[in-house]
């Protein structure tokens, strides 16, 4: 076995090694946090749809994503109901209410889902118990999301507060989470939607189409596109999830910001590792020049520096990964799990590769120095 020069050089300078590893770990942590938020964003964008009991969705062509949807004529849904293979069509009304915190009397926006209580729009069991269904039917009564942020005040059943100059009562609870679109959500009947927002019910924000079992959603969607006028867009569940996801990631600056975050973290990592490697090379120039005089080629020294970089990346990744897992758990609990940041192995592998790439890049920048080690300068 060769003398593991790279390893021995690194561990010889203990405090420098600790600084280097802390630097790499920090960069890894920053990358993980940015990707974690980005992933949570993508996931929360799809979360609403995951809970909806529908296979095909109708939206207005002007709708970019769920929280800013535009309305389209309800008749389109009734037209769709005539297609063979369609089991049920369900209009979904969406809007924002100004919810007054009964304790502080501050008003904040809540995102509202409204539908006919006869329709089982959501798969959440809590929303389909007889008690909640009865509550839904009562006028000026809404169901309140337990995962809403605490700034909205009491979420208890029976809480009364003022919403757009009407008194509204919390009649039930469920757990959905607003993701990036909203800090709080409520569910109400279509009748209450009309009462509170005064928007006619013949305009809907989203049309949910449930298909007969064993029906090909792609085929029905294609058929609907043929039949329906161009004032609605037909999307399968997978398509609408992808639509919202890519809206949040690419069309808003959110994806860009987190992407920048990843890039900046990588630059921080590259600079730290470069600094460490460069110092290490500078300290050993005489020794490296001696190796060259002994007949070692630049390639060997190049390898030593690359090995040092890989050792730093592997050893720095481990604490970076572990602290990220910890911070993910913290972020998820701090947001009541509305921000579903979680580690998955693809991301872990991807960041690991990124870390190695980062360190190798630093090595490539600093390695030019070692190639200039000249034996004649030893005399």
């Amino acid at each position: 076995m060769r003398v593991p020069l790279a390893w021995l050089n690194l561990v010889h300078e203990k405090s420098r090694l600790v600084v280097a590893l802390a630097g790499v770990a920090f960069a890894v942590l920053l990358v993980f946090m940015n990707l974690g938020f980005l992933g949570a964003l993508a996931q929360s964008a799809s979360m609403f749809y995951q809970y909806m009991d529908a296979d095909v969705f109708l939206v207005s062509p002007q709708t970019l994503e769920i929280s800013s949807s535009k309305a389209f004529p309800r008749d389109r849904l009734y037209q769709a109901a005539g297609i063979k293979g369609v089991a049920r069509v369900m209009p979904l009304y969406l809007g924002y209410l100004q919810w007054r915190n009964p304790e502080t009397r501050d008003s904040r926006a809540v995102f509202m889902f409204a539908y006919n209580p006869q329709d089982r729009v959501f798969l959440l069991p809590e929303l389909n118990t007889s008690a909640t269904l009865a509550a839904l039917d009562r006028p000026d009564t809404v169901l309140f999301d337990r995962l809403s942020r605490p700034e909205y005040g009491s979420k208890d059943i029976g809480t009364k507060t003022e919403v757009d100059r009407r008194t509204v009562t919390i009649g039930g609870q469920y757990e959905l989470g607003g993701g990036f679109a909203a800090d709080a959500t409520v569910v109400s009947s279509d009748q209450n939607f009309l009462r509170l927002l005064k928007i006619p019910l013949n305009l809907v924000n989203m049309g949910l189409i449930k298909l007969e079992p064993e029906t090909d959603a792609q085929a029905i969607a294609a058929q609907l596109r043929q039949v329906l006028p161009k004032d609605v867009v037909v999307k399968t569940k997978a398509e609408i999830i992808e639509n919202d996801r890519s809206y949040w990631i690419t069309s808003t600056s959110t994806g860009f910001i987190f992407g920048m975050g990843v890039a900046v973290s990588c630059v921080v990592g590259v600079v730290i590792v470069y600094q460490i490697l460069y110092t290490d090379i500078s300290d050993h120039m005489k020794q490296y020049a001696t190796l060259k005089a002994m007949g070692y080629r630049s390639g060997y020294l190049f390898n030593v520096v690359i090995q040092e970089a890989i050792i730093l990346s592997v050893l720095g990744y481990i604490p970076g990964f572990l602290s990220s897992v910890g911070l993910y758990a913290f972020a998820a609990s701090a947001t009541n799990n509305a921000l579903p940041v979680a580690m998955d192995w693809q991301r872990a592998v991807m960041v690991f590769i990124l870390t190695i790439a980062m360190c190798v890049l630093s090595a490539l920048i600093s390695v030019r120095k070692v190639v200039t080690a000249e034996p004649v300068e030893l005399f």
Partner: protein
Amino acid sequence: MSHLSNDLPSDSPHFSSEEIAVSVRHLDYYYGQGDLRKQVLYDINLELSKGQIVIMTGPSGSGKTTLLTLIGALRFLQEGSLNVLGQELVGLSKSELVEVRRNIGFIFQAHNLFDSLTASQNVEMAVEVLQDWGNKRQRAVEMLAQVGLAERVDYKPKALSGGQKQRVAIARALVNQPSLILADEPTAALDKQSGRDVVTLMQTLAKEQGCTILMVTHDNRILDVADRIVNLVDGHLESDQNFTAFSQTHDPKALV
């Protein structure tokens, strides 16, 4: 002046490569370019026989190190010819020069050991350059024992004295049994006694291994180990004598 061969035409087959380790012919060397170009070596002719210990002395700036690094295949030749261990260096590529260096042991004024490696590992690095993995540890340990460091093989340089470190550097230079050893003021950083010890050690080992030593030194206390002393002045080989002749013609104090 039998070793000086100024009178021989450079193209004549004047030596047998079996006996000659290094042959320098009509060598000129310049530093710098254009207006700054400055000649530092003038028509150097020198032959080192195998097994000889040759000391090169001369005033500071006379070109000793330059000549040593040329012989050591560490610089590109400009004018003249230079044959080292049967290999003509003129026209060799960088990579071919590296190959030549593997048969040469270098000893520098500074030991240049890796602080992070033990004495043995530092010596093993030299064995590894020849792709020899099998018994490198054993060879390193044996070599260190020969330089009197049997008890110190697993010490790091920090735990060794200056003389001991230089002995590790000598072990590193000798472990591959090179045919030629080039040393530039190997005793300059050592006190009188360790300097003397180091040179005696080099002498003993060189005699055992039959290798040629070319050593640059200002240290007139160690001149007696030399079979030959060449004196370089302002880039010219001024004299080439044995120790006795040299000490009669040169005031020892003038060398220091």
